[in-house]
């Protein structure tokens, strides 16, 4: 490539990426585009169905488990203080794993290592209850994902997944959620896809679900083979999505249509 063409190519590449990514000030939580009834449901703990999971999580937090006969509360004390802000920092890099762990995996790691109990199955009611209860303690706090030398490869991997066309429909996440967010797909507004309220109570599911369940939904929608719940690919994508939503307040437990 000649020296004269190269700068133009770079400029075009920059322009393309600038168009693709949503400027920080223009980011919107899916909450802002919901109807007022759904918003009211999320805002009021007395009618937010996720409260059932928060309360169950609270009792699991205090229940002794595993061969160590220890409860989460025995080490961590009151979750209202010890777990404040924790969900807003996850997925977080774990030195012993050499990779990021999301909140569900962190809870299970604690269960295996400290409580000497069996890990809870991904998407099981108990794990959803515990992760919802823990994430609830970060409600309103800004999402803050570590961006450093050690997390960069995973953030980049997540970004690459987000940008990669896949499935029979040959679509990338970015094509809908970066480039066409706010427009409509089959009569429904396309959200920007910020994971601000997970685990969420999704009215369509009639139950709580993790972000990975939601991601599987999206992948099935573009007729791609979904990654497994809790897989490295999904954790990297989750980390990128959380980084993309950095600074936005966590809403857990969110309600979504």
């Amino acid at each position: 490539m000649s020296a004269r063409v190269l700068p133009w190519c770079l400029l075009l590449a920059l322009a393309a990426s600038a168009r693709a990514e949503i400027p920080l000030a223009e980011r919107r939580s899916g909450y802002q585009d919901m109807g007022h009834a759904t918003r009211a449901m999320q805002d009021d703990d007395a009618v937010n169905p996720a409260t059932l999971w928060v309360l169950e999580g609270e009792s699991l937090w205090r229940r002794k488990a595993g061969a160590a006969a220890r409860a989460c509360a025995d080490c961590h004390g009151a979750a209202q203080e010890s777990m404040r802000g924790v969900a807003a920092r996850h997925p977080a890099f774990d030195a012993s794993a050499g990779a990021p762990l999301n909140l569900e995996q962190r809870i299970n790691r604690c269960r295996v290592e400290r409580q000497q109990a069996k890990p809870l199955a991904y998407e099981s009611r108990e794990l959803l209850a515990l992760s919802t209860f823990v994430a609830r303690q970060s409600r309103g706090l800004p999402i803050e994902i570590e961006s450093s030398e050690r997390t960069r490869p995973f953030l980049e991997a997540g970004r690459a997944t987000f940008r990669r066309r896949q499935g029979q429909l040959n679509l990338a996440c970015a094509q809908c959620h970066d480039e066409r967010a706010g427009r409509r797909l089959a009569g429904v507004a396309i959200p920007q896809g910020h994971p601000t309220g997970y685990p969420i109570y999704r009215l369509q599911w009639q139950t709580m679900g993790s972000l990975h369940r939601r991601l599987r939904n999206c992948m099935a929608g573009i007729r791609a083979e979904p990654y497994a719940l809790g897989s490295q690919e999904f954790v990297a994508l989750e980390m990128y999505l959380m980084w993309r939503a950095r600074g936005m307040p966590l809403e857990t437990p969110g309600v979504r249509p």
Partner: protein
Amino acid sequence: MARVVVNLPQRARRGEIIEIRTLAGHDMETGFRRTQLGELIPRDIITRFTCSYNGVEVFRAELHPAMAANPLIVFSTVATESGTLEFRWTGDNGFSAAHSASISVD
């Protein structure tokens, strides 16, 4: 473990209309869905909800298969006297959940 959330004011003036909000954790399986193998999933729903105020029934609801999971039931009653409100949900397969809350009326 039956999971319920009940929300009502702890205090009220005599004669005041109070709002009571209840949420019960239940899958509300309609009985119309089938598994991937084509077998019918049997119905499993809450069929009845009652609220009694110092032993007197003040509200009752019958629930049916088209109702959403984790039904939210909001109703109102008149605060007549201090005492206890008993809430009871019953349903298929022996489902039963109960909750009681006290209110002081002055």
